[in-house]
């Protein structure tokens, strides 16, 4: 199967199934660099500043091993998610410990609501156990990206 990874919420190059990072800042930076390489983010430092501003309001770690650093930023071109699986875990401030599933959700600042529906659909999947289980079992980045794209339909 040839999935042309030119569009959509996530592509193969935005997945890292072996994310190793000492803290959430470097984990977020690593994921953001992948989005920069994929052309989804125009200014890495500007984007990271926006994410930190959001993170400062309230940590984005959630119970059950999930971290969802996110923001609306003018440095984002299209709604995009970067996915990292971190077997050793990264602390995103959740009460019950570090996160192994990390989603960097990037929304363009000026996007209208229709555009952002895809991210709303993604957020809804993040609280479904089956979705989380399947991603934890992922071994192939292309398959993981394909799974997220097909699961997440607004």
């Amino acid at each position, binding site marked *: 199967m040839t999935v042309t990874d030119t569009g959509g919420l996530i592509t193969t190059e935005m997945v890292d199934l072996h994310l190793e990072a000492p803290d959430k800042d470097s984990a977020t930076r690593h994921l953001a660099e992948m989005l920069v390489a994929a052309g989804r983010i125009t200014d890495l430092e500007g984007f990271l500043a926006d994410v930190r501003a959001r993170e400062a309001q309230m940590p984005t770690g*959630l119970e059950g091993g999930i971290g969802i650093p996110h923001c609306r930023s003018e440095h984002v071109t299209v709604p995009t998610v970067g996915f990292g699986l971190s077997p050793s875990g990264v602390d995103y401030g959740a009460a019950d410990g570090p996160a192994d599933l990390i989603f960097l959700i990037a929304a363009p600042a000026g996007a209208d609501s229709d555009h952002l*529906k895809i991210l709303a659909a993604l957020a809804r999947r993040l*609280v479904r156990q089956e979705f989380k289980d399947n991603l934890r079992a992922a071994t192939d980045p292309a398959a993981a990206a394909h799974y997220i794209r097909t699961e997440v339909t607004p």
Partner: protein
Amino acid sequence: MKFVAVTSCPTGIAHTYMAAESLEQAATAAGHEIVVETQGAGGSEPLDTSVIAEADAVIFANDVEVVAKERFAGKPLVTSGVKGAINNGPALIAQAEEAVKNAPVGAAVPAAAAAAAAGADTGPRLATKVSEGDSWGTKLRQWLMTGVSYLIPFVAAGGLLIALGFALNTIAQGDQGYLVTDQADAFRAGLAEGEVLFSATSLADWATLAFVIGQAAFGLIVPVLAGFIAFAMADRPGIAPGFVAGVVAGLVGAGFLGGIIGGLLAGGFVMWLKRVKLPFAFAGVWTVVVIPLVGSLVVGGLMILVLGQPIAALQEGLTNWLESLSGGSIILLGVILGLMMAFDMGGPVNKVAYFFGVASLTTSLEQGTEVGLQIMAAVMAAGMTPPLALALASTLRPNLFTPSEQQNGKPAWLLGASFITEGAIPFAASDPLRVIPSIMAGSALTGGLVMAFGSTLQAPHGGIFVVPFIGDPWLYLLAILAGMVLSAVLVIAAKSTKKAEHQLHDAEVGAGIPATV
């Protein structure tokens, strides 16, 4: 059970939807029905009013303020942050179940009915969703009262600061010194040059400071009125065109009247714009950009090019008419306003009189005249006497009142002193034919006396607590006292004849119908 929920978070792209999903899962798992409104960036489908009406309880999972909360009035409510809903949806659903079980009987009234009932009597409620069944007259009143309710804090701040400026300046300089208005002009000229002409040890400077800030608050009055009239009609998209229409009304000298008309125009035009059916992709741009832009341009243009001069002329005519009132005619106006204030104790007639008072007050403060301040003074005094009179009557002759009315007598003192005419309602509801004419007579006397004494009030509300700001406070209190005593005597007399009749016929004992509070 049936639940409705609203979720919202700061960024509006992730937690809002996760919380919605989590609540839906938890509710379904527990065998309930739930409909969630996601107030996020990715579109929000407002809950259908019928869905809200049928819901047994409401859940708010929000980190930013829920929009249009008033739709849920009267429902059992459970609240949490979004994270609480995501991490533990089942616990929140269980709390909602508890809330339904513990809710007082009758609390789960349909929200629309509750909002309509509340909206009909208490103007200050956000009348963004004027219920469909209401007549246009009722809607118009709700729109205007919404505007006025947002206006009042500005009038209070502005009016009292201006009054404080005058008072402090008189203390500092006596009657022969510089006028605070001239000092304020000089102060503002200094600010424009980057100089703050202020010395903390000079009382006159403090007077000027209070005066200048008061005038700044006053500058917002007409825009706030117009903006929130439009808001009441067309919800948030109405705000920008409404405020712009209000500022433009000021530019063309159309004043308070221009603010009302501009606000209504803006609200009506945006209501119409909102009805345009668009492909969903354009909906966001339409609300955020097109409606404010087109609404402001069209309504602002209309105000400047077409309506501005006629409204300004009308406003001037109204002001001149107010100015021309004196002697007998202004006393008659005070009597009529008094009758209106007492007639329905916070209902539509009372609100019309109050609205007239606030409109006159702001017009007078803007133009530096006195008559509007007198009208406001009469309206407030006449609105204070009904609860005070009934409190007095029930204290003097408790045996003429039912036990529950006697209970209401104590808070009525405070309600009356605070200018909350509604304090008389429990008494009037149980015995309207004896109570209402009595309190109308007293309020009419008070209104007429205030006008005769020439008392002036610079605040739109506040009751006894703003009496220090009243010109001739002692005469003002005397006017209130006179109306209060007259009403109390009339109520006691009316109730005594009733009691005599009862004894004659040996029928019911006491005051008959129990008070409905």
